[in-house]
């Protein structure tokens, strides 16, 4: 068997929000998978549903969210059919998450040692207090924190932003999860600290052989850390493929527009391309292709019918009437 198995697989997953008595669809027929040992990037702008995608896996959606259908398979088992008790066993042990803002996601009144220890206490009940403390200190050392014995007894406010994010990662990897969901893990960090944290995540992945689903809006971070990418726009995948597919052969007009609107660090750019208009809100989604109102290559069919995500080459899929697989020139 040459191809690694799928750890996580979305199948026609749909969810939306209840807004003023009405249900507005956001995520519409999401299908993609994270293969064992790979790093998948989920890219999109604000409001495209990328964070909701991650929260859906852990079943931690806000109360206004409504799941309409589809499946999220973890090792072949549908997470949406699990009971809350079963989910509690999975969260933190098999699937763990790193959030964007380490200050708001750590508890300010507990030491970092207690917060890392909590995961072990819940998922490794056989472990004694002394062993738990030793494991916590080892974890802190693994994520690159100097003086872990002292740091263990400190509170989050005594740590810098970069160190807090390292603590978040230590909590997430405490039970060696099979998949790590990282939602904008470096967005709140400074450039030189971001580089440290990204290098750390790569290193831990190598050690544990786990998979990562990295959610970000930063195409640079994706190009440097992921092996495969899913580009989302307003709740749908518009393009997916390997890093080379997306950055060397971008096909969907949205992907091309995004890449063209980035100023370059390595060469001088002329006037930047910009995609006209702005990202639609969940109440104002169009029928047909949701990108159509901003698309320069729009045709009549685009505003009427939804394009299907189909392969244009092996592993490289595009959902577009004009540039996609079934396009008529």
């Amino acid at each position, binding site marked *: 068997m040459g191809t690694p198995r799928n750890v996580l697989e979305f199948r026609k997953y749909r969810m939306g929000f209840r807004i003023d008595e009405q249900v507005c669809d956001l995520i519409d027929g999401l299908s993609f998978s994270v293969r064992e040992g790979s790093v998948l990037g989920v890219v999109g*702008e*604000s409001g495209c549903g990328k964070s909701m995608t991650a929260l859906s896996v852990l079943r931690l959606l806000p109360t206004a969210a409504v799941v309409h259908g589809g499946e999220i398979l973890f090792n072949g088992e549908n997470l949406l059919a699990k009971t809350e008790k079963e989910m509690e066993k999975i969260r933190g042990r098999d699937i763990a998450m790193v959030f964007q803002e380490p200050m708001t996601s750590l508890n300010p009144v507990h030491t970092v040692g207690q917060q890392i220890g909590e995961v072990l206490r819940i998922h490794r009940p056989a472990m004694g207090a002394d062993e738990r403390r030793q494991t916590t200190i080892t974890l802190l050392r693994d994520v690159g924190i100097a003086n872990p014995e002292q740091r263990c007894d400190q509170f989050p406010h005594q740590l*810098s*932003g*970069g*160190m807090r994010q390292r603590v978040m990662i230590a909590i997430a990897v405490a039970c060696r999860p099979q998949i790590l969901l990282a939602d904008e893990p470096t967005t709140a960090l*400074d*450039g*030189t*600290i*971001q*580089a*440290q944290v*990204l*290098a750390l995540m790569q290193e831990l992945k190598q050690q544990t052989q786990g998979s990562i689903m990295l959610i970000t*809006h*930063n*195409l*640079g*971070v*994706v*190009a*440097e850390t992921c092996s495969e990418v899913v580009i989302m726009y307003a709740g749908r995948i518009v393009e997916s493929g390997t*890093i*080379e597919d997306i*950055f*060397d052969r971008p096909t969907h007009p949205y992907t091309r*527009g*995004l*890449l063209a*609107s*980035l*100023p*370059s*660090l*390595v060469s*001088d*750019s002329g*006037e*930047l*391309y*910009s*995609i*006209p208009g*702005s*990202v639609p809100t969940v109440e104002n989604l169009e029928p047909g292709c949701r990108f159509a109102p901003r698309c320069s290559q729009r045709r009549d069919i685009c505003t009427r019918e939804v394009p299907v995500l189909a392969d244009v080459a092996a592993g490289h899929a595009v959902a577009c009437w004009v540039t996609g697989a079934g396009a008529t020139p």
Partner: protein
Amino acid sequence: MSALLQIRGLKKYFGLKKSLFQRERGYVHALDGIDVDLMEGETLSVVGESGSGKSTLGRTIVRLEQATAGSISYQGRDISTLSGASAQEFRQHIQMVFQDPYASLNPRLTVGHALAEPMLVHRKAANREVAKVAVGELLGRVGLRAEMAASYPFAFSGGQRQRIGIARALSLGPRILICDEAVSALDVSVQSQILNLFNQLKRDLGLTYLFITHDLAVVRYVSDRVMVMYLGQVVELAPRDAFFKRRLHPYSKALISAAPIASTAPREAKIILQGEIPNAINPPSGCRFHTRCPSVMKDCHVVEPPLREVEPGHHVRCHLYTSAS
């Protein structure tokens, strides 16, 4: 080109909270001796990480903060000590665009009202009727429609709000715009629209920009000159092309190396700095960067390097270049 703004020995210390019967316990050295000229018509980018003092620099120039020491001269006149009517008169000339377009607009004022207010206060418009016409023109200039003046901020997207923030900054006809992370909160597809707008306004109105950002790709796109700050000091100041071709300071090199690039082309190995940005309450002795510097030498721990001009227009604060030439 003449210097529109001359900053000399500018310092800003924030006192830490003191308890009763206690003298001040210490200071955050936000700005520690900044010397720079802002030339007429240029875009000077200020780059740095959190705690570098880049935002404090912008806020001190527009007098949102009072300088602790040093001077800021606008067209030869010291503005750091102005008060009352003369301070208000000066404010027309330098305006600021803030990072968060959601937080910087009053939700209870219509856009038209928010834009007309500064013009009425500064008597740029005699009455509301005149101001209304001017607001329509301003909105057109930033790519919005005149009838949008009647709407409240909540009705606009992030990009549109940032356009309104820019229109408000332009309402008094400033010569200098200070943009503090003005595109950082925007989505990629909207960010390029706003960057292009800044460039267009510069061509149309002959504006001078102080562009504060942490995004080096943005710096490369908008700047004429680049200034890198670290812990309240300038560590490198250079023309844009010279900076991106041959930056000199080890910190500048690490910053550029750490910036992720959206491309599959192979890159040189990243310089990953060890450690954290030190605390600005007790900045390190000698060179402030020595605690993280990959090329640290013996002298760096004790002797603070001066900011020296090593090539025409290219200044660097580092001992590696002190002995040369």
